């Protein structure tokens, strides 16, 4: 599964993207965030305030209860500040 990080989420995790094998029992975006946080202090830091983190599956905004099944690309980022 391809995971992308943007803005301060990228800076805190120390990477822009990675391909990882996620355990089969990680079923939702929220569960993926929980699992990522277990990977090390940089992830714990990036996702400390998980409620503010936005997610997109295959380039479409999703909520944290969205299911990962079939997802190719998952992105995590702060609230948008473009325009």
């Amino acid at each position: 599964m391809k995971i992308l990080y943007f803005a301060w989420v990228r800076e805190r995790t120390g990477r822009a993207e990675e391909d990882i094998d996620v355990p089969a029992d990680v079923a939702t975006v929220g569960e993926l965030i929980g699992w990522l946080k277990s990977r090390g202090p940089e992830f714990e830091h990036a996702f400390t305030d998980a409620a503010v983190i936005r997610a997109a599956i295959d380039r479409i905004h999703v909520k944290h209860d969205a299911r990962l099944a079939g997802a190719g690309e998952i992105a995590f980022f702060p609230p948008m500040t473009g325009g």
Partner: protein
Amino acid sequence: MAVSIQREDFDAAAESAALRAGGGDIGAIVAFTGICRSDNGRLAALELDAYPEMAQAEIARIVEEARSRWPLEAVRVIHRYGRIAPGENIVLVLTASSHRQAAFEAAEFLMDYLKTRAPFWKKEHLADAAGNWVEARQIDEAAAERWAAGGKKSA
């Protein structure tokens, strides 16, 4: 193509001319240009982080939504990313319609949705300090929400 996500600057006049040349019975064009402010010299530059592939798709969806709500003859959106200095362009929204109300409302709608849904993030590089990510503003969320559920603006 109605939507461009690019590092390069854009030429609003050329874009507007292309829109007019595209035909249709255009009576009103609204052009919104968003520009990097210096904030009275405080800012050295903005760094716009982007998720370009998603921005392209998400803004195309927002444009389709605008087209379903207003009778638009043409729409054009360009959003830059990368390092942008004060005075430089950030975003262009062009809407063309037979009558002015549709063009105005659609342009405002597009900007409100761009602000809250398009995957861009601004980092401020200050003239005399380290960079800071810009916080999302509740006022932008509120501006976008006034269009919810097919509503007309009332903010």
